[in-house]
C-alpha cells in the first residue's frame, strides 16, 4: 500500500470541496421546501406594509422627510433579513443536530465543524440576502420609487444575514433545549428588533438608547439600506458596513466554537 503522503493531497481548513458538499445538501433540500418559504417571506412583509402603512400612514404621512410607506418598506428589509437568518439558523441547527442527526452524518464525511458552520451560515446569508429584497419589491408595488442603489440591498442583506445566521447557530449550539430560545427571542431579538428604527425613527428615544442602537447591527443594517435605496450613501456608511462585518466575523467564530463543543466530545 502506498504511504499516506503519496496518495493523499494535503487537506487543510475551510476547503472548498467540503463547503460545497454542505451547500449542495442545503440547495437540494431547499428544492423540497422553497414554495412555503417564499410564500411566507412574501406575504409577511406585505401584511406589515398594509397594516403599518394604513394604520400609521393615516396618522403620519411622512417621517424624516420620507413617505411612511417608503420608510416602513425599507425598514422591513432588515427585519426580513433578520427573520430569514436568525430564526432558521436557531431552529434549523437544533433540528439537524438533535432530531435529524444530519450533522453526525456530515462530520463522519471529510468535513470539519468549522466548514460545516461556515457553509451553513453562507447558505442562510444568501437566502437572507435574496428574501430581504422581497419587502422592497412589495414596497415598490405600493409606490416606492425604484433606484439603482437598490442593487446594493441584497449584498447588505447578505453581510447582515451572515452575522445573524451565525448568531442563531451560536444560540442553538449553546442551548440544551428549544425552550432556551424563548429567552433569546424575548430578551435579545425583540429589543434589537424594536431598537432598529424599522417602523419608527429613534429620534424620540433617550440618548442612551440611541447610543446603544449604534451597537445594534440591525439598526446599522436599516440605516445602510435606507441610504442605499434613497441614494444618500456617505462615508459614515462605511462605518456601518464595518460594524456589520465585525459583527459577522465575531459571531462566526463564536458559532464555530459553540458547535465544536456540541458536536465533538
Amino acid at each position, binding site marked *: 500500500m502506498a504511504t*499516506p503522503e503519496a496518495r*493523499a493531497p494535503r487537506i487543510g481548513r475551510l476547503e472548498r470541496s467540503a463547503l*460545497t*458538499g454542505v451547500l449542495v445538501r442545503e440547495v*437540494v433540500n431547499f428544492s423540497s421546501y422553497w414554495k412555503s418559504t417564499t410564500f411566507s417571506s412574501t406575504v409577511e412583509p406585505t401584511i406589515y406594509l398594509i397594516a403599518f402603512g394604513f394604520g400609521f400612514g393615516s396618522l403620519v404621512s411622512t417621517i424624516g422627510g420620507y413617505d411612511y410607506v417608503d420608510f416602513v418598506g425599507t425598514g422591513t428589509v432588515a427585519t426580513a433579513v433578520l427573520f430569514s437568518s436568525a430564526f432558521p439558523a436557531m431552529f434549523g441547527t437544533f433540528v439537524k443536530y438533535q432530531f*435529524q442527526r444530519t450533522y*453526525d452524518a456530515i462530520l463522519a464525511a*471529510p468535513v*470539519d465543524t468549522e466548514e460545516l458552520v461556515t457553509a451553513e451560515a453562507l447558505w442562510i446569508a444568501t437566502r437572507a440576502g435574496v428574501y430581504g429584497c422581497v419587502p422592497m419589491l412589495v414596497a415598490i408595488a405600493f409606490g416606492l420609487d425604484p433606484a439603482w442603489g437598490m442593487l446594493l440591498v441584497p449584498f447588505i442583506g447578505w453581510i447582515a444575514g451572515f452575522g445573524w445566521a451565525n448568531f442563531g447557530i451560536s444560540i442553538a449550539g449553546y442551548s440544551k433545549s428549544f425552550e432556551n430560545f424563548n429567552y433569546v427571542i424575548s430578551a435579545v431579538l425583540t429589543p434589537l428588533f424594536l431598537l432598529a428604527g424599522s417602523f419608527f425613527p429613534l429620534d424620540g428615544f433617550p440618548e442612551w438608547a440611541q447610543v446603544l442602537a449604534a451597537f445594534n447591527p440591525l439598526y446599522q443594517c436599516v440605516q445602510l439600506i435606507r441610504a442605499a435605496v434613497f441614494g444618500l450613501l456617505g462615508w459614515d456608511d462605511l462605518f456601518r458596513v464595518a460594524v456589520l462585518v465585525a459583527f459577522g466575523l465575531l459571531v462566526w467564530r463564536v458559532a464555530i466554537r459553540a458547535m465544536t463543543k456540541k458536536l465533538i*466530545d
Partner: protein
Amino acid sequence: MRGVVKRYGSITAVAGLDLEVPMGTCVGLLGPNGAGKSTTMRLLTAQSIADEGELEVLGFTLPAESKQARARCGVVPQLDNLDTTLTVAQNLLVFTHLYRVPRPERRDAIERALELAKLGDRRDDRVDKLSGGMRRRLLIARALVHRPQLVLLDEPTVGLDPQVRQELWALIDALRSEGTTLLMSTHYIEEAERLADTVLIMSHGTAVAAGPPSELVREHAGSEALEVYGPPARLAEVEAEAVSAGLRTRRTGTSVSVLGIDRRNGTPFEGERRPANLEDVFVLLTGEEIA
C-alpha cells in the same frame, strides 16, 4: 487503536481498548448496550477525541489526520439520518458531494449504489415513503458511494424484523466477499457469528476476548452445552451439582446451560445437547447477559 481511553465526566466509556482491523476482513464488536461500541465508532471518525492512547485509521493518525481518513471511510450510523424529504437518488447525490466523488464519476457512483441497495425502481421516491428495511439499505449504500477502503457499521440491523435483518446480512456479506474491510458493532450474537471473521467481545469499555467466532467458542465454552429445563428449585440443584463437578453453568431464563460437557464422559443430568455458541462465551467471560 492502542490503549485508547475515553471518559465522559466520571464515566469511562472506553477503558484501554486495543483494536486492529486487518485489511479485507470483517471485525465484529460484540457487547451489550453501554459496552463502549458506539463510542469506539465515534472515536474512529474523530467525532469523539480520545483522552489517552493512539489511533490510526488507514495509515492516518487521529485526530490530526482524521479528515484524510474520513475521506476513505464509509459510515453506517446506528440512527437513521437520511434526509427524509429528499428522494433516494438525491440522498445519494448529496453524499457524492460530501465524499468528493469527482464530477464525471458521480452518475455511475449513484447508479452503483442504487443497484447495491436494490432501490433502482424507487430512485425518485421520497425517503419518508420507504419501508424501514429499504431505508437501512439506502443508509448502507450511501456509505459506499465513494468506494471506501473501510466501512464502519454501527449496529446495522438494530430494531429490524428478522426477515429484513437477513436481507441486510446478505448485503453486508456481499461487501465482505468483495474484499471491503468492515468494522461492525452489534449486540446480536448471531450477527457477529455469521458476518465477522474476528469477534472482539467488549464489556465495560475493554476487550475481554478476541478471535474468530468458532475458536472463541471452542476455547472458552467447548463444543457442546447441555440445556437442562425444570422448576427453579431443580435448576438451582443442577447448578450446584455441576459446579461441584467442575463444570461451568449459566442461567438462561427457563433453563440452566451446563457448558463444556463434551470434555466429560457422561453427565449426571437429563437435558438437551446443543452446540456451544458465542453467547455462552460472552456470559462466561463477562458474567453479563447480552441483548
